[in-house]
C-alpha cells in the first residue's frame, strides 16, 4: 500500500532523508521512531506530496506521488505534526469543508462527516468554534479530517502528541482498530506506543533506517528487553 523507494531529501548541505526505503502493507501499522530531526516528518511530507523528494519515489496504492500527485493524494489521510486547523471555523464547518475538497457531496458528505465525528468522539463539540476547543479536541478534529474519505492509507505525524493519558489510550485503540483494514504509518516519540499499537516498527536516525522489525524482534534485538535501550544505542543523542 505504501512503497517508499530510495527516498532522499536534501535541504542545502543537510541531507534530511538519506536513501530511505520501506513498505507498509494493508493491515499493517508501522511505527516510525526516531529522535527529533531524524527525518520522520520530512519523509511523511514527501509521501503525502507536500513537497517533492530530491530523488527516489513513494507509491501509494501503486500510484506514484511524483508522477500522479492528485490521484495519490486522494488515497491518503494525513494528520500533520501540529494538527493545523482553521480556528475561525466550527468543527462541523471544518469537516464539511475538508469533505468538499475531497470531492464528497450531498448525502455522501453528510455521512462521511457524521462517521468521522462519531469515530473521533467529537459529537459534543461539533457545533463549537475550533478556537474554543482544548488541545485534545483539536487534535481529534484534525484526525477526523484525515478519516473523512475513508482512505486506504493513513499517515499520522505524532498523533498522540500533547494528549492526556486517556486521550492517548483512545487514539492508540483507534489506530489499532483502523489498522486492521488500512495501511498506517505513524510517527511517535513514545516507545510504549510501539508495543501498544504497532505491528512493525522502524527506527530512523540521521535520515537512515537503523532498525526494522516487529516490536518483539526489536525488544529481542535490544538484549536488555527494553526498547528504550535499543533506541538510545542506535540513535544519535545530540540531535
Amino acid at each position, binding site marked *: 500500500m505504501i512503497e517508499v523507494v530510495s527516498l532522499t531529501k536534501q535541504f542545502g548541505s543537510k541531507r534530511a532523508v538519506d536513501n530511505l526505503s520501506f513498505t507498509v502493507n494493508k493491515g499493517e501499522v508501522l511505527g516510525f521512531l526516531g529522535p527529533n530531526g531524524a527525518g520522520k516528518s520530512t519523509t511523511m511530507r514527501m509521501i503525502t*506530496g507536500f*513537497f517533492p523528494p530530491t530523488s527516489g519515489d513513494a507509491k501509494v496504492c501503486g500510484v506514484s506521488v511524483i508522477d500522479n500527485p492528485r490521484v495519490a*493524494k486522494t488515497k491518503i489521510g494525513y494528520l500533520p505534526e501540529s494538527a*493545523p486547523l482553521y480556528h475561525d*471555523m466550527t468543527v462541523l*464547518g471544518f469537516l464539511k*469543508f475538508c469533505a468538499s475538497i475531497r470531492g464528497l457531496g450531498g448525502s455522501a458528505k453528510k455521512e462521511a462527516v457524521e462517521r468521522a465525528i462519531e469515530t473521533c468522539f467529537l459529537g459534543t463539540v461539533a457545533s463549537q468554534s475550533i478556537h474554543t476547543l482544548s488541545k485534545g479536541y483539536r487534535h481529534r478534529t484534525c484526525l477526523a479530517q484525515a478519516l473523512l474519505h475513508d482512505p486506504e492509507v493513513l499517515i499520522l505525524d505524532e498523533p498522540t502528541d500533547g494528549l492526556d493519558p486517556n486521550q492517548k489510550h483512545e487514539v492508540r485503540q483507534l489506530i489499532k482498530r483502523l489498522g486492521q483494514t488500512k495501511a498506517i504509518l505513524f510517527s511517535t516519540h513514545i516507545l510504549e506506543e510501539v508495543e501498544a499499537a504497532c505491528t512493525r516498527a522502524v527506527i530512523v536516525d540521521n535520515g537512515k533506517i537503523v532498525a526494522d522489525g516487529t516490536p518483539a524482534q526489536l525488544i529481542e534485538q535490544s538484549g536488555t528487553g527494553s526498547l528504550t535501550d535499543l533506541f538510545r544505542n542506535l540513535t544519535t543523542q545530540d540531535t
Partner: protein
Amino acid sequence: MTSLTIYRRELSSYFSQPTAYAIIVVFLLLSMGLTFSFGNFMRVGDASLEWTFFFWHPWIFMLLSPAVGMKLWSDEQRTGTIELLGTFPLSTWSAIIGKYLAAATVWLAALLLTFPIMLTVNYLGDPDNGAILAGYIGSFLVCCTFLAITMLISACTRDQVVCLIVSVVICVGMVLCGYDDFTRELGKAVSPTAVEAVLSFGVWDHFRSLNQGLFRLQDLVWFSSFIMVCLLGTSAILSAKRS
C-alpha cells in the same frame, strides 16, 4: 469546483470575523467623508463623480486593500494549514484563485455599498451613468491590482504585519508615481529611461481614463496582466517554498 470550496471558506472567514465589516465601514466613512469634505461634493456640482468621489479611491485602497489581502497566505503559513492544503488533492492554482476571488468579493461588496452616492447624483442632476459605471470598474480594478500585490507578498512571509507594511509601501508607490512632483524629484536621481520604467507602474494613467468613461484596451490589458503576473508569482513562490 475546489476553487469554489476555497472561495466559500475564505469568504465566510472574512464575514465570520470583524475583519470585513471593519474594513467596509472604514472604507465607507473615508470615501464619503472625503467626497463631502475635500471633494466639495455639494459645491462642485460634478455629477460624473470623477473628482469628488472616485478620485479618492486609489488613496484609500493603497492603505486598506492590503489589510484585506494580508492574511491570504501569511496566515496559512503561520498556522500550518498550508500543509493541509498542500496534501489535499487540489492544485495550488485553484487555491490561489479561490482565495483571491474571495478577497475581491469583500471589496466588491464595499464598492456596491456606496450606491447612495449614485442615487444622490441621479436625484440632484442628470449624470452619465455609463461613465459612473466605468468609474466603478476602474476603482475595482485598482483595488484588485493592490490585492494581487498583497497576495504575492503574503506568499513570501508568514508575518501578516510584514506583509501589510511591504504591500502598503508598494501600493503607495504605485499611487504616488503618477504625480508630477514625484516624477520631477525622481528625474533628478535617475535616468529618464528609469523614470519611464517607474512611471509605467503607476495606476493613475489607467484609472483616470476609465474614470472619464473611456474603455481603453491598453488599460484593461495593463490591469489584467499586472494581476495575472502577481498571481503567477504567488504560485511560483508557494511552489518554490515547498521544494
